[in-house]
């Protein structure tokens, strides 16, 4: 294909992408380095807006708490989702006849909007008429019929578990694909040598799945750091109850659009830039570690 023809073919996509993705992404960073009075941009501010995040209210209390919640959300989701997802994928691997059907069923909640999922579970967990607590009471477990979303101690875990519930189909599919790629001969050979199912899994299959575990972990990290719609549905933009479900992107949204502070654009852009660096840096380091590990397996 000729260069000029090719450019004509690329032009519409490039124009859309440049205007609505690249330009805002690039300017997003520049916003953070200027002083702002409402929507008027002032002088170059250096790192002043970043300093605000660590010295002024409400950031001094809200930001560390929100970061902690993002980290708990990441670690909790990762541990629970990887364990359940890998177990299910492993069990499904030896059941070719029901595999497709079950994979499809597990993936169903992924389709539904996080907003719908949040409201649905809010209603199901309602202390007054929710079927979950009614069921628990009916089974004689009154002490378990808690006000799940009203209590700051349990609310964050509800968000984490519901998120795992919604996304479990994803690791099941990815680990299923990765297990399909483990040569049958390797595990066969181990069994011939007298290894049990468990040994064959932990010594042969699991090490070969490390790249897939890594991919799922990196994607979970990005997903957890960006969490917005699900916590919004559960706790609104302020992370009710009492900030127990507050996350960095909610704090960003509040600062940018709800705070009414004169320098809202500056400080919220600084927050977005930090979050971006955290996501990008975290994903980059994790990928680098993963690559090194992969080279070790193949060597």
């Amino acid at each position, binding site marked *: 294909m000729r260069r000029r023809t090719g450019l004509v073919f690329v032009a519409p*996509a490039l124009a859309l992408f440049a205007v*609505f993705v690249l330009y805002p992404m690039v300017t997003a960073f520049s*916003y953070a380095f200027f002083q702002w009075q409402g929507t008027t941009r002032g002088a170059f501010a250096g790192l002043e807006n970043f300093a605000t995040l660590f010295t002024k209210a409400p950031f001094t209390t809200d930001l560390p708490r929100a970061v902690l919640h993002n980290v708990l959300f990441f670690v909790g989701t990762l541990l629970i989702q990887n364990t359940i997802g890998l177990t299910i994928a492993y069990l499904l691997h030896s059941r070719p006849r029901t595999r497709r059907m079950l994979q499809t069923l597990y*993936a169903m909640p992924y389709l539904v*909007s996080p*907003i719908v999922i949040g409201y649905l579970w809010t209603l199901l967990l309602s202390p007054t008429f929710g079927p979950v607590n009614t069921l628990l009471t009916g089974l004689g477990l009154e002490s378990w019929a808690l006000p799940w979303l009203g209590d700051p101690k349990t609310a964050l875990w509800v968000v984490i578990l519901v998120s795992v519930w919604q996304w479990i189909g994803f690791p099941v599919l990815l680990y299923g694909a990765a297990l399909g790629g483990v040569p049958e*001969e390797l595990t066969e050979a181990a069994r011939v040598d007298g290894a049990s199912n468990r040994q064959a899994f932990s010594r042969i299959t699991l090490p070969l799945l490390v790249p897939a575990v890594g991919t799922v972990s990196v994607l979970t990290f990005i997903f957890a750091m960006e969490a*917005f719609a699900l916590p919004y549905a559960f706790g609104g933009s302020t992370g009710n109850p009492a900030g127990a479900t507050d996350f960095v992107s909610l704090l960003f949204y509040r600062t940018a659009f709800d705070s009414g502070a004169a320098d809202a654009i500056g400080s919220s852009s600084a927050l977005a830039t930090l979050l971006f660096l955290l996501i990008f840096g975290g994903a980059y380091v994790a990928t680098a570690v993963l690559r090194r590990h992969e080279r070790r397996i193949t060597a």
Partner: protein
Amino acid sequence: MTTAVVSTEAPGEASTTPVAPRPRRRAPRVNRPVGGAGAGVLLWGYAALALVPLLLMVSNSFRSNADLITDPLGLPAPPTTSSYAEAWTTGNFATYFGNSLLVTVGAVAVSTSVATMAAYALARARSRIFRWLESLFLSGLMLPIHLAILPIFYLFDGLGLIDSRLGLMLMYAASGIPFSVFVLTTFFRQLPEELEEAAALDGATSWQTFWRIMVPLVRPALATVAVFRFVPIWNDFLFPLVLLRREDKYTLPVGLTTFFGENATNYSAVFAGLVITTIPLIVLFLVATKQIVAGLTAGMAK
């Protein structure tokens, strides 16, 4: 390598040890499901856990509010559709639904069209500038676009696109380009170049070759891209929350938050709203399970 060692060792072992062969436990194990019946129960139990909340959502939407409060575990007997009438008309879900459909279908159509053209050029043109353009598009896979919401808001403000469904549609179309280009370029590269050479000999223009020969051949990939992009756009919450101010322009997720805020105790109408928001995705899932699963695994390469 391990396999080679095993296959040479096994016969060697047999010839040096003429005693009774060890019992071969391997054969029956191969096809036996790991974990047996217990694991099977676990797998189906988990499937129930995935589905029951969604079924409860549908079942509760067909019950009256009074019924829901007195008997949280009851079934819709007899089913009533009054909550749907309420959500659809007084709850404005008819408007939200129309807006969501317009924005999502438009965005998927625009995004897939421009991405297909771009992907074809990126797969076939040899000039170095296209390698550079390809990495530019693919960098978009890594960019958390939601973090750029402030500049996007001011961009929309400047262009007079606040409260514009067209603006929101173009935004979604643009944000879908990296994924679509990524999947489609891979597909175009797998097609033999002889196809275009033959078409050129027959006097076809570049556009004719693209439209008549290449596009029909990547149709499965087009279906995957279109179906897979539909879901996140339909479900997206942050963009309409920030970029739409007038209620008559709202899409379903934002409309739902308004409705939930005003009718938090009208449980059955809320359930109906949740179902209305979800139904198109369930229909899509039933007709295009294969594409959705393919899209999920394509995301692995990201």
